[in-house]
């Protein structure tokens, strides 16, 4: 109960620092979700529609990488972006951009695997019809994606959920710098390490509230989309 009221007080006072942290969390995780979707959805769809060499391997890899520990993804990006690493020249380490890269890598496999799973049954169902109208590859992908769009939303939400919840990757590549790379999860970890367990829990509740809000918005968009459904 104390935690709940502490969370409310934190939100209602709209502390500028907390608002900045929430804003950065949303920016980093939503951008990572957008990037992973733009890359992962076409790959997932292609894997469901066409047979090509290496297809099974890519699928196996995607479902294996769903278990990639965030710390490992973070380490990988750290080593790449460090000044001692191949992309060090860019100077991206300890910036929000590095956090976006790490989270994109983390959720890309989820998007690929879930989009594949969403499109595959549609492909089986529509294959004859699409072949009979001699649909080109672009029309085929578009038709299947559109008809699977409500399941695709779930894939995107699953990706966003993993991004906004993880702490291991953003901690390593962001460095939890106050006002620059500090997000909700790293703040929760920091407050826990300071022994401020109630505050940490209150921040956790706020994070859940934000995830709830994002889901409500996505659900609203889905409803809005259903109006245009062809009967």
């Amino acid at each position, binding site marked *: 109960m104390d935690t709940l009221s502490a969370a409310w007080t934190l939100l209602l006072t709209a502390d500028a620092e907390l608002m*900045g942290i929430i804003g950065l969390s949303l920016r980093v995780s939503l951008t990572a979700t957008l990037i992973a979707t733009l890359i992962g959805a076409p790959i997932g769809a292609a894997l469901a529609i066409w047979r090509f060499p290496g297809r099974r391997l890519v699928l196996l890899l995607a479902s294996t990488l769903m278990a990639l520990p965030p710390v490992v993804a973070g380490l990988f990006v750290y080593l790449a972006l*460090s*000044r001692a690493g191949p992309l060090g020249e860019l100077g991206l380490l300890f910036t929000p951009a590095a956090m976006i890269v790490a989270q994109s890598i983390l959720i890309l496999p989820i998007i690929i695997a879930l989009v594949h799973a969403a499109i595959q049954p549609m492909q089986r169902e529509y294959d004859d019809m699409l072949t009979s109208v001699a649909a080109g590859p672009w029309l085929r992908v578009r038709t299947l994606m559109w008809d699977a769009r409500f399941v695709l939303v779930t894939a995107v939400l699953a990706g966003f959920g993993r991004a906004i919840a993880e702490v291991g990757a953003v901690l390593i590549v962001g*460095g939890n710098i106050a006002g620059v790379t500090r997000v909700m999860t790293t703040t929760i970890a920091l407050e826990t*390490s*300071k*022994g401020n367990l109630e505050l940490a829990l209150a921040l956790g509740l706020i994070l859940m509230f934000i995830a709830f809000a994002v889901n409500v918005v996505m659900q609203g968009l889905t409803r809005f989309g259903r109006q245009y459904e062809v009967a």
Partner: protein
Amino acid sequence: MIRNMCLAAAIWLAAIPAAAAEFITVASTTSTENSGLLSEILPKFTEKTGIEVRVVAVGTGQALRIARNGDADLLLVHHRPSEDAFVAEGYGLERRDVMYNDFVLIGPGDDPAGISGAGDVSEALVRIAEAEAPFLSRGDDSGTHKKELELWAEAGVTLPDGGWYLETGSGMGATLNIGVATGAYVLTDRGTWITFGNKRDNELLFSGDPRLFNPYGVIVVNPERFPHAKVEAAQALSDWLVSAEGQAAIGAFQIEGLQAFCPNSPEKAGRREQEEERCPADR
């Protein structure tokens, strides 16, 4: 319309908080950051110079590693042998004294090993070992961990593999959280313990041995090794920390009404003697 909305969303998402004109990255330890010292004194430096300071607070071992990779411009850490090695290997310019605080032993309030009456830190550790009372080590190559291993060696205690001596492999805060929950002894620094919010019935049981002094040093990375490093700005912060102004800011920082760090730059020798009279290690 939808395209414009997507574009606007993309711009909002990609917008990264506006960075100050100039910033430096400091690799430092959790004890300086979590105690609130750096967030108290660094704004004074930024106000004066316009240089933004970004602090990555990790264990000393990891901080040194970050600097070795060229990912920091300045180090503020607390393990003298590692600092000297860092400079000797050509990664950093000179190491300067900045301040010190002290390590303390905390444990359950009823003090089963009876360390509160020990004459010095070696005796306290021997009592823990003889009582086989649970002791938690960080085991993470941090400055505190390295110090702890040195203290055990000086006390002549051969550490068992498991049993009453356990490594958490975690940061100071995580180790303290485990320690208070299991009633174990832990070596920590005074500032972290005073600000720690989850003490339960655990108490500071032993402190005051001069060997528990915990000196912090500042090192600017070597520009010959790291041409991209912002050495001028880092040097400005290093100079400020040992200046009369910086030393005064460190000395004025208090946790719950007590001075938490003692400025000890020999470059301000006159001040130093006055400061030492009211330093936490002497309390």
